[in-house]
């Protein structure tokens, strides 16, 4: 209970699903051999943390930000540029963290003070504008960021796949640097999610929810809403940058497509909404469903598309083409906002489906 900050999943099925997901993630290196499974598991961890941090904004304060990938990208690029420039050592990792996290927090502070002060409705538009400017900036400053190619880098010795920590003959599994990196990603993501649970269940988190429900009334009660919203924005940015750092460490690469593109922003939105806004747990569920679908359903779509084109059906092959996967996600997104505004978690907690949770 302590570790969950007194906010348990509150549904037997949900608890079961979460336990299964977490156990499966923790055991991925041993249960599912192969690089793809490990990649998928690492991506789920990173995105669970990233989406949870977005949930702090969307689900708990009710403000829509389109700049979340920017903070994610800042984290990714900070570590990538540090490791690229200073060589694969721990000092570079530390530099990346020490530069990346404060940078993200400062930028979030600036955006928050500027746009949350004016009018809540501006926030979504202004974050969209700032994020797109940042994206252009990142691709233009190619001497620093590597432009469209991004930056590939080497990890410190300990985290490389070639580093064998425990050889195969001891347990039947080889524990190498790659697996160590995976557990690093797993542990840090878990810590960040638990920290977010702590934040949303603190008095501060209650104020955020009060602001979401009725900003005017929260202000009348004497809370400085701009301060609270800006603070939440900075916290979310910090966690997003942290997730970005993990992502870059895992991929050994940072580039516009993996850390900045607008489609990642849409993915995050989808995961939050599918999982359930304002629950934090929804982030884990949403990220798991989405990334599993992204990695395994897409190939299914390819098969369906081929079958449809062989059957000579018009239009359908184009619509089912794996590249059009976003189309179906978009439809799913609209449907879930409309029919399941509380997402999977909200449904499991409250099967009757009456309105509750973080949908406003």
């Amino acid at each position: 209970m302590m570790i969950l900050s007194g906010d348990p999943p509150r549904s037997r099925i949900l608890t079961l699903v979460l336990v299964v997901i977490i156990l499966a993630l923790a055991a991925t290196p041993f249960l599912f051999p192969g690089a793809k499974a490990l990649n998928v598991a690492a991506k789920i961890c990173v995105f669970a943390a990233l989406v949870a941090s977005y949930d702090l904004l969307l689900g708990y304060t009710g403000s829509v930000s389109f700049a979340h990938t920017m903070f994610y990208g800042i984290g990714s690029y900070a570590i990538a540029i540090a490791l690229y420039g200073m060589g694969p050592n721990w000092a570079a990792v530390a530099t990346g963290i020490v530069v990346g996290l404060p940078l993200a927090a400062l930028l979030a502070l600036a955006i928050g003070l500027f746009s949350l002060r004016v009018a809540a409705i501006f926030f979504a538009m202004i974050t969209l504008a700032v994020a797109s400017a940042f994206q252009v900036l990142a691709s233009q400053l190619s001497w620093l960021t590597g432009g469209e190619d991004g930056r590939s880098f080497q990890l410190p010795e300990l985290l490389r796949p070639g580093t064998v920590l425990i050889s195969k003959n001891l347990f039947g599994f080889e524990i190498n640097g790659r697996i160590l990196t995976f557990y690093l990603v797993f542990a840090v993501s878990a810590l960040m999610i638990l920290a977010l649970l702590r934040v949303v269940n603190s008095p501060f988190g209650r104020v955020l929810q009060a602001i979401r429900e009725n900003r005017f009334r929260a202000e009348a009660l004497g809370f400085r809403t701009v301060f609270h919203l800006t603070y939440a924005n900075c916290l979310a940015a910090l966690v997003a940058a942290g997730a970005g750092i993990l992502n870059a460490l895992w991929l050994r690469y940072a580039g516009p497509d993996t850390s900045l593109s607008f489609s990642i922003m849409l993915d995050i939105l989808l995961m939050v909404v599918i999982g359930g806004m304002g629950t934090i747990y929804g982030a884990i569920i949403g990220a798991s469903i989405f990334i599993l679908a992204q990695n395994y359903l897409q190939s299914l779509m390819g098969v369906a598309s081929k079958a449809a084109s062989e059957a000579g059906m018009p239009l359908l092959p184009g619509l089912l083409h794996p590249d059009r996967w976003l189309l179906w996600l978009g439809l799913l997104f609209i449907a879930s906002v409309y029919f399941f505004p509380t997402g999977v978690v909200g449904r499991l907690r409250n099967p009757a489906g009456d309105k509750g949770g973080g949908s406003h």
Partner: protein
Amino acid sequence: MTDLAATDPLPKPKRDIAPILLPVALALLMIPLIGSTSSWLTLTAASLAMGMMIFIMASGLTLVFGLMDVLNFGHGAFIAVGAYVATLVFAPFAASVQADSLWINLAVLAPAALLSMAVSGALGLVVERVLILPVYGQHLKQILMTTGGLIVAEQTLYALWGPQIIPMPLPTSLRGSFILGDVAIAKYRVLAMLIGLAVFIAIQLVLNRTKLGLLIRAGVENREMVEALGYRIRRLFLGVFMTGSALAGLGGVMWALYREQVHASMSDDLTVLIFIVVIIGGLGSIGGCFIGAILVAMVANYGGFLVPKLALVSNILLMVAILMWRPRGLYAVTSR
């Protein structure tokens, strides 16, 4: 507040001309900085043309927000749809497009633009009914729903037309420039300016001189009151939404001709630009939107000429500066 006798004329609203002077001042300020008068004239003309196109695209968005408090993140989709529909007309009549006669060119251009407007307007009807109607009064869901709509629209365009960039050549008679002394002004920009100005004047006339416009303006200021007086503001809003979508479609055609290409992701970049314009102008204000569009275009053109590196963030800087000056945009119309 002073008491007014019944016979006194109503007090005139104060005219706020500072925002109008802003683009003029900016343009004049640029003369010494740019140095050569001919480049200045060319750049100014380019800004005005670009501004008009952005205005046409943004006007619908700002009206929709002002009237019904609906923030449509999918507005960009209407732009892209408009542009794609125009290619449908352009492709079979390629010969007429290439013909060196203004009238034959216009005979293709005008139906293409009208068809685009009709299709985007009809799409607006569907979007309003399906996506926006269920989530009235809920900003968060509106943003999510319309963002979803934007994804679906964009992906459908990809599925129907493929991911490649479709070239959209300018009609022959609109190519080239008018040369006045040593000043060159592209012909198409003149046309864009004329159309933009016409749209602006038409919107202003409808808003200020007709009963329909009176109702729209009243609805922007106080929706409940208009409803209480027995007008069906929902229907009014649907009309505004469709008009806004149709204008976005027209803007899309014009923008596609300006860039001479069509791409499904064109809506992404333009959405950002339009948002900046709408924020600068003040949500719900047509006049503010007009000035905002010209300002954004001026900053883009002058900035691109003077300090190309700055062009990337110039729009953001402009927005920051304006919001520092007037936190709710140039003209704050709504009380929201």
